[in-house]
């Protein structure tokens, strides 16, 4: 883990979401898909603690990370409006990761295909996940991305570089109308027992996806977003009650197999 000052080199803004591209001088440590960073937001008593944000993409050759941030309060609003050139202090990489295929073992239970389901800003970690799957494992995942309306569905072009993209919106303004769990593409996927489902989004959505995957006997992982303070597994503030007792979402997670959870 490192703690480093990053410079905001580019920012792209949509209505509720901004894409931040940040570079640091140091060489980045290896970052796994599903890991997150803790961002320091300065100059306000109401953003005293760091804010956890998923790694949206990594460009190792530029020591660059991308963050996709949605405005929900003071901290995320500040981040979304930062001027280019701003210095942002970041601790990274934190947490575990989504399960990747194991290149060394040949066990039967290996995932052969991936369905990556994202809702709202929960799509953030899935881009880097897709990139790693394609460039390091030669797997083209299927992305299923949902939002309330078209304006929630950002970065679709980037996702298309690494896999097939399907979308839903609650108001029908883009993709199929409804929730991700209603999408027609899911029907043909239940038969694929080598399919690994990975999901990140609002809790009700993750619960619905978990229920669907459980019923279809598919292996499924979700990425939780509990409130955090330290992000390092030191304070025990972010716990989730699991089959193994209270686990830290920041260190034992954020990615959990649905069989570990009590939902």
């Amino acid at each position, binding site marked *: *883990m*490192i*703690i480093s000052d990053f410079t905001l080199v580019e920012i792209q803004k949509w209505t509720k979401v901004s894409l931040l591209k940040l570079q640091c001088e140091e060489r980045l440590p290896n970052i796994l898909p599903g890991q997150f960073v803790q961002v*320091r937001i300065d100059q306000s*008593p*109401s953003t*005293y*603690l*760091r804010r956890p944000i998923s790694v949206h993409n990594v460009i190792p050759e530029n020591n660059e990370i991308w963050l996709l941030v949605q405005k929900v309060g003071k901290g995320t609003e500040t981040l979304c409006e930062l001027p280019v050139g701003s210095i942002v202090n970041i*601790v990274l990489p934190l947490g575990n990761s989504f399960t990747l295929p194991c290149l060394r073992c040949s066990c039967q239970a290996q995932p052969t295909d991936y369905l990556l389901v994202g809702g709202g800003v929960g799509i953030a970690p899935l881009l880097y996940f897709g990139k790693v799957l394609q460039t390091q494992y030669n797997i083209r995942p299927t992305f299923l991305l949902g939002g309330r309306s078209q304006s929630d569905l950002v970065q679709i072009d980037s996702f298309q570089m690494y896999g097939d993209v399907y979308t839903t919106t609650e108001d029908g303004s883009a993709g199929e109308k409804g929730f991700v769990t209603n999408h027609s593409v899911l029907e043909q996927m239940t038969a694929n027992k080598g399919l690994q489902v990975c999901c990140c989004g609002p809790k009700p959505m993750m619960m619905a996806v978990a229920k669907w995957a459980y019923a279809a006997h598919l292996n499924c992982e979700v990425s939780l977003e*509990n*409130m*955090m*303070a*330290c*992000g*390092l*597994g*030191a*304070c*025990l*503030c*972010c*716990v*989730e*009650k699991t089959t193994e*007792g*209270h686990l830290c979402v920041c*260190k034992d997670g954020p990615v959990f197999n649905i069989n570990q959870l009590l939902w």
Partner: protein
Amino acid sequence: MVDLTTDLGKGLILRNPVLTASGTFGYGEEYADFVDFNKLGGIIVKGTTLNPREGNPYPRMAETPSGMLNAVGLQNKGVHYFVEHIYPRIANLDTNVLVNVSGSTIEDYVACAEIVNSLECIPAIELNVSCPNVKQGGMAFGVNTEGISKVVEAVRKVYHKHLMVKLSPNVTSIVDIAKAAEASGADSVSLINTLLGMAIDAAKRRPKLSTITGGLSGACVKPIALRMVWQVSKGVKIPVVGLGGISSATDAVEFMLAGASAIEIGTANFIDPSLSGKVGEGIADYCEKYGFTASSQLTGALLTD
């Protein structure tokens, strides 16, 4: 060269006045990438109880202006697990490792302290009689002089190394409590633990913590902590360890000027995980700049005329 050596008495000698506060620094290992442990006077590990504790339900944390509330509720795997699994990993860290001993009955405190007494590499315990997040006990002992005398006397009988007693700020007169701890055999007192507070989500019409109330910490509590350290250091002869909102070397110096012999860094570790390793040097810089040859000269050096 400024001498940073800090002698808290009864064999507890720190290489500098900087400790990390219980519950904010895990077992030290979590911060290994950010802090050279040989830059610390010591680490105070998580609150440890005789039996394992699940802690309180989520949500256990709420951010507040320049601070946070927590209601972790002493989640830990119990002292036996600590002795078997954690102690071997951290016993040989290049710094003092202190155990924060917590409990809800006198028997629990005594049994836990007795076990820690047998651990060769632990030179001291910090007796937590002040946690606001456990239902019975904890703070009940720390809020009146009879309670604190009972628990400190009982632990003193079985604990033969340095006994630091951590005080609650949620009392009418913290000086009286500190005096009672001193009279009952404490070798030092540390203060403050968290202040009892509360946060509400108006939109949901619900408390933000599962326990409704919780402990306030962070920069916002510093003025209260500083005042209490000042008062207590006037009232007792044993060393005072100051904490509460310390976020920089200057903050640390302020606590020492108010009367603290050593300081602890707590919530600020979350904001800058590398902070605790830098404060010792910062204190030395201050000493050099203002003509002190040893950091111990700062203790109580406040000018009030």
